[in-house]
């Protein structure tokens, strides 16, 4: 059985490497298209990790949702972002770099501490084996019902905001 453990370990390291590589691509590239594709690679790595943890359902949903999301971000970037020519002509200032680093570090450490302090790390052998659709659904609708509903309220707000922004249509305002 030792072969399988090595294969599983190799897959795990591969997925982790994919996640980090994508994240690195996302922050290093100047062009929005490359950055968002880096994000896509990173999310693919996360999907692989879900698969590794024994929940193909979450992995498939991750791919299904984020492919569409990534495409929409790219289209938005094409419509409002800089073209490659403009990027080459523009000198990027590094004035705000410390501020950006500080904000990112703060966000990361805050989330990291919050998650680590709440998680109880169970041994792999003690884990509940059931990660099926039924288990996920019951957890979402009983234990995490409030969070689930709040997320839908956020989405509803976003939809209403989009409708209000687009309500006037394409005609030029004559006021």
């Amino acid at each position, binding site marked *: 059985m030792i072969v399988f453990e090595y294969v599983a370990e190799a897959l795990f390291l591969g997925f982790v490497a994919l996640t980090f590589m994508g994240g690195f691509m996302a922050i290093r590239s100047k062009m929005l298209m490359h950055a968002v*594709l880096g994000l896509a690679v990173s999310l693919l790595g996360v999907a692989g990790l879900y698969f590794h943890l024994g929940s*193909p359902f979450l992995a*498939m*949903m991750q*791919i299904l949702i984020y*492919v*569409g999301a990534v495409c929409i971000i790219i*289209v938005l970037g*094409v419509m409002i972002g800089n073209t490659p020519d403009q990027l080459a002509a523009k000198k990027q200032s590094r004035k705000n770099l410390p501020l950006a680093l500080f904000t990112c570090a703060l966000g990361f450490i805050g989330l990291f501490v919050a998650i680590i302090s709440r998680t109880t790390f169970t041994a792999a052998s003690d884990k509940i084996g059931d990660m099926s659709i039924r288990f996920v659904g019951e957890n979402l609708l009983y234990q995490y019902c409030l969070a689930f509903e709040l997320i839908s309220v956020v989405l509803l707000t976003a939809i209403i905001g989009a409708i209000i922004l687009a309500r006037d249509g394409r005609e030029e305002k004559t006021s």
Partner: protein
Amino acid sequence: MELFYSLLPELIRMVVCAVCGAVIVFGNALVMGYAERKLAGHIMYRPGPMEVGFHGILQLVIDGLKLMGKQLVIPKNADKPLFMLAPLLAFAPVFVPMLVIPFSDKIQGFDLDVGLLLILAFASINVLAILIGGWSSNNKYSLFGAIRSVAQNVAYEIPMLISLLAIVFMTNTFSLKEIAAAQSPVWFVVIQPLAFLIYIVAMVAETNRAPFDLPEAESELTAGFHTEYSGMSFSLFVLGEYANMFIVCSVATVFFLGGSSGIPLPYFEYTGIVWFLLKVYALMFFLVWIRWTYPRTRFDQLMNFCWKYLIPFSLVNLLLTVVLVKLI
């Protein structure tokens, strides 16, 4: 060594599944390429390909060789890595759904309990490939085609999913095998006609085929997202499109047309696959038929049709299904 021998059947099975998937993808592209040109010809009162072989039956083989021999032109200002990546991304994911399609109750690669989600997830990567290809070509027409494709695919994915969800509610499973088996007395097309209609429309839009072929609208956008692609990189897009047609038609067959059920043929245990392929290719014939019969829709008509008619109707259908399933 003992471990290896105990694993051998499973390893052989994996290799056989992979080879069969590849055979289906390429064989289907050959058959559909020929059938499409021949049918298009006859719909337009002309014979179609006639020169190579009996009634042009070897035309696609020759065409394939020609495409392989062609030069791959990369535009000077294109984003080279992404330009090369896009056709591969359009083509590679189509092999995965072949593994979970139940060709008959005995012929299926793997019966996953998330089979439907696997198919939808890997089929949705196609739109990302089109977007990358259109953007990296650095060409206005390509970019227009790519952006249209995103708007269209993201919109039509919603009614497609919701119409399939109605069936999932009735059968209580995502496994394609169990869904196909659940319709032994009556096919779901009889019980869920509205969901079937919505799925068929969404299916045509998802595969980017006429009358919804706005991403490549040749009268306005030269060739849309694949304007700059030539030779084999162009044909990878076409192979991907035909494989996607096969996949969505298989899903329609499994969900609405009874999967592989049919009258058992004598002397043949695996008759299911005959009926399954007959149903799938009947649907594909329908796709080709409407492509060469109807004119292309305008883009605002396409989006309005999805958001104002298909999505509300599919939601009402889902709601009715849920209520009825609870009551009965």
